[in-house]
């Protein structure tokens, strides 16, 4: 057991856990942040995606000890009702979620992607950026549309960045 500190969604947290426990398990079990989901557990599906220093990673393959003192953002940190991020609003507006299992991971990936660009991305660009996130329900059309909608809104109202 080790005492490990992180900054999660802007808050400093300390947890006592084995250092080789995955960050995903720490978020879900120790910190009660259950938006990030475990699906494959081996980096293939992206449902566990979180941001470390604003870069998207699979938290199922990050060990807690490796995330020590890092700045972590989960889907809860992107936005929580009623203060949703424009990406989350767009997913609702476009109906880009069905069972919802993949959605938090996709929101987090889309957040990192859109924060890094200043144009409305093409379908090809979105497919590359979100290539590591699988969805078994929606068929992706609405997800891609939602990301484009969010991008156009961000560009037209840049001050919505909270």
């Amino acid at each position, binding site marked *: 057991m*080790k005492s490990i500190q992180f900054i999660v969604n802007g808050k400093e947290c300390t947890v006592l856990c*084995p*250092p*080789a*426990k*995955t960050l995903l398990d720490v978020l879900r079990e120790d910190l009660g942040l259950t938006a990030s989901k475990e699906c494959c*557990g*081996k*980096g*293939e599906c*992206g449902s566990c*995606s979180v941001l470390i220093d604003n*870069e*998207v*990673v*699979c938290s*199922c*393959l*990050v*060990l807690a*000890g*490796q995330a*020590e003192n890092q700045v972590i953002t989960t889907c809860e940190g992107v936005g929580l009702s009623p203060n949703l991020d424009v990406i989350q609003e767009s997913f609702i507006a476009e109906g880009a979620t069905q069972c919802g299992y993949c959605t938090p991971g996709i929101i987090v*990936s889309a957040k*990192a*992607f859109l924060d890094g660009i200043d144009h409305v991305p093409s379908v090809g660009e979105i*497919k*590359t*950026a*979100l*290539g*590591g*996130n699988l969805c078994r329900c929606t068929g992706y059309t609405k997800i891609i549309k939602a990301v484009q909608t969010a991008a156009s809104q961000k560009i037209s109202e840049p001050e919505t960045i909270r």
Partner: protein
Amino acid sequence: MLVSEIDMITPSSLSECLMQLSKEGRIHRLIAGGTDAAVRMKEGKWRPEIWINIKNLNELRYIQESEDCIYIGPLTTHKDIIYSPLLQRKADVLVDAAREVGATQMQNMGTIGGNIGTASPAGDTLPALYVLGARLELTSLSTKRIIPIEEFILGPGRTVLKENEMITKILIKSQKPNEIGIFQKLGPRKAQSISIVNVAISLTLDQDLKCREGKIAFGSVAPTIIRARKCESMLSLGTINDELIRNIAKIAWKEVMPISDGRATATYRRDMASALLERGLYRLIRRWDNQ
């Protein structure tokens, strides 16, 4: 060993890391991005007593050029490689290969040192490093040696790295203006897939597509990466045209030595090695013409 029993040490400098590696009487293993290490830990294959975590050892994360050599730190991520203007200009084939690794998440997490350390026959940066004449600096507390990558990798997952050593630098030759490279990969899907076959090509061209030298390295068609020497010797014979490309592709079919496994049969791999090489050469020529 249970996952919950594995300890972790995070050295704050290279010298501290080398000291940790030199400690005897315990089982330890380096973990960088963890994209191979964590998966194998979960599968029960890699359960060291201690992970030596080098993820944030930033003194080993750099891309520098000096004269005609480029130095890459092992902690450099695939994303760093993809966005490096220096590598885009002078090691295009490596940038191509890094782009094909996994998807965004794996490119953010995975490092070039880890890709080499895993020594998978399907590792995507490896064929690119072979055609770029990569050498590796291996350092322990008291020794330092530089060896060609061909001598580093012995077989699937097997390398000459000693218990107390680590990769501290990757050295490649900068491409000259008349050199151009490309990496081609076939996987079950576009993103996030292990190569069924991959190939890196690097050509030194004169006027009118006269090829002075060509290097070709295949992955996933033998226990380690292989250079296609017969194909290479054909390249240095003359001008690159349809006929030469078709003939080289035929020779490649014979030159690779793939096995059948869960991902593909040997025959399919031969066919695809040949097709990827042909396609790669055509794409390379088009890229050259567009320059």
